[in-house]
């Protein structure tokens, strides 16, 4: 653990500039101004240059759009692919088959396992050992690292088997999957998931025992599904609000943050958080029965206001993804099916899913030729951006007696707990909602 004393504290720290925040996805920096023991401001700058996807998608054929928008993000590309496909299908009144939905769940589970493992084991784990990087671990931690990579690999391989690739998947399309997993591939995945399941419980225990703490009195928002599968259900918040997917936009207020390449949001005027912590806070009872049995001690932590419990929540979600994947893979046979063709038609469609970092929202308007008229995409990191700043204010004011270096270390640790994805957040220019 990192030293928690105030030795070497710099009196009168009045300004902190952190360039190139490390061990996060994408580029961000932070400016903090302090005076008289109070934080004047925190500016979290998402410095990832915009790639203007909201403009680039206009006039593109909607059927092929998911392959394009998956390029918004490398690590959660399957989330963009899936959410975009859902929006296109809804715009064209197309209902995918139960098998297609099952394959989507599996491809999302593979992504969640890999993505959460990346965040927990390569970004956060060094903080638990007081090290800068997993690269600094010594031989006594070799077994731990082997287990971490084995977990990550199982998610990567599950996505490959189901969706063709873990990053920018090739089999998933609007309305169907172009390829089905073979029995041999399924067996291999099942064996692999069974092997790594006990490792996951070890890591859950590790994050459960972690004493990092920053409690925030905020709203938690997530898409709540009956089987905790990330792709359907209704949006709920921690104050008891229930919202249909197509009404989500009505609750979001777009906040222009002039110093950041990304736009922020609040939820009905209130600060809120999306992500694994929100999902556990709102929907832990819907997790797989095996997960609930084996992780009951850890699940009792939720609901929690501690932002660092987002890490514990992600670790538990890995277990759920394994358990539900095993249940699906072992109780279903995937067969070639004759999907109805997607008929091009004019319309508007809204896709909402849970990406690794929280609720992902696609709204698309499509013309009669099947081309996109306009679209709007809201990603989790945009929704957490204001909350991250306010959490940093609270953390800095509680740590003012410490040295600048210690404060900076604590800030990075906190930002990492949100698991921000700057590539996602800076994808677009403005909301084209009409």
């Amino acid at each position, binding site marked *: 653990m990192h030293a928690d004393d105030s030795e070497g504290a710099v009196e009168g720290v009045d300004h902190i500039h952190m360039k*190139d925040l*490390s*061990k*996060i*996805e*994408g*580029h961000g920096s932070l400016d903090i101004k302090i005076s008289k023991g109070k934080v004047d401001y925190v500016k979290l700058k998402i410095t*990832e*240059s*915009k*790639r*203007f*996807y909201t*403009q*680039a998608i*206009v006039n593109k054929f909607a059927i092929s759009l998911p392959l*394009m928008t998956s*390029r*918004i*993000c*490398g*690590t959660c*590309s399957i989330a963009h692919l899936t959410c975009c496909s859902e929006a296109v299908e809804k715009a064209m009144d197309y209902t995918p088959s139960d098998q297609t939905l099952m394959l989507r769940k599996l491809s999302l589970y593979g992504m969640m396992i*890999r993505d959460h493992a*990346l965040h927990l084991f*390569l970004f956060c784990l060094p903080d638990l050992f007081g090290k*800068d*990087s*997993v*690269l*600094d671990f010594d031989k006594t931690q*070799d077994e731990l*690292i*082997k287990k971490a*990579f*084995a977990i*990550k*690999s199982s998610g*990567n391989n599950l996505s490959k088997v189901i969706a063709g690739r*873990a*990053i*920018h998947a090739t089999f998933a399309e609007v309305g169907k999957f172009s390829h089905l997993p073979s029995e041999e591939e399924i067996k291999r995945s099942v064996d692999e998931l069974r092997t790594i399941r006990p490792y996951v419980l070890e890591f859950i225990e590790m994050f459960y025992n972690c004493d990092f703490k920053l409690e925030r009195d905020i709203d938690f928002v997530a898409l709540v599904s009956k089987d905790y599968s990330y792709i359907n259900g209704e949006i709920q918040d921690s104050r008891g609000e229930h919202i249909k997917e197509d009404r989500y936009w009505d609750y979001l207020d777009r906040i222009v943050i*002039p110093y950041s*390449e990304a736009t922020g949001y609040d939820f009905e005027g209130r600060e809120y958080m999306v992500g694994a912590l929100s999902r556990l806070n709102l929907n832990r009872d819907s997790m797989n029965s095996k997960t609930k049995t084996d992780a009951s001690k850890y699940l009792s932590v939720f609901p929690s206001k501690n932002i660092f419990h987002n890490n514990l929540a992600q670790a538990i979600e890995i277990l759920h993804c394994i358990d539900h994947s095993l249940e699906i893979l072992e109780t279903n046979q995937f067969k070639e099916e004759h999907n109805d063709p997607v008929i091009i038609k004019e319309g508007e469609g809204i896709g909402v899913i849970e990406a690794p970092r929280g609720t992902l929202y696609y709204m698309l308007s499509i013309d009669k030729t099947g081309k996109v008229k306009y679209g709007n995409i809201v990603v989790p990191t945009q929704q957490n951006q204001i909350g991250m700043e306010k959490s940093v204010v609270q953390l800095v004011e509680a740590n003012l007696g410490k040295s600048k270096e210690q404060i900076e270390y604590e800030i*990075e640790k906190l930002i990492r707990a949100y698991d921000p994805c700057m*590539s996602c957040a800076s994808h677009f*220019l403005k909301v084209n909602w009409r």
Partner: protein
Amino acid sequence: MAGKKLRIGWFSFTCCEDNTMVWIELMNANYFEWKELLDIRHARVLRRNNVLKSIDVAFVEGAITNERDAKKLISIRKNAKRLVTVGSCAVNGMPAAQRNMFDEKVKKDIEFLLTRFKQADKVRAVKEIVKVDDEVAGCPMQEDVFLNTLDKYLKEFGVMDAR
């Protein structure tokens, strides 16, 4: 040469960082071998304290969207004996460079943001700014091509037997 390691840097500019993800996924099977063969001197995605000097091979992903990044790229080139671009955005600019193809009306719409964030008029591929020694194309990069390229430099720098 016993104990010698290839000193590498991993750098990311404007893109979706899919190549970083592929690289990290390749660690699942290669981490312990790479730990013996590679001295990862600069990789923001893996560590906070990085060193930008005396790099044998710099792997660069992403397109260059502004002068700040162009200067950073030039500095990487100066500090690396070899520079390899990984992934489509670094190799040919796309899809990060899609704004280059916008029509005049859309370009006008986004102009204020390009000005606010001091962005260049045109997004460039890495080779438009510095000399590139090798390219690993693909969106994301092809795993086998990357591994072959890494092997090539492990041999060239005498870290692995050149036979």
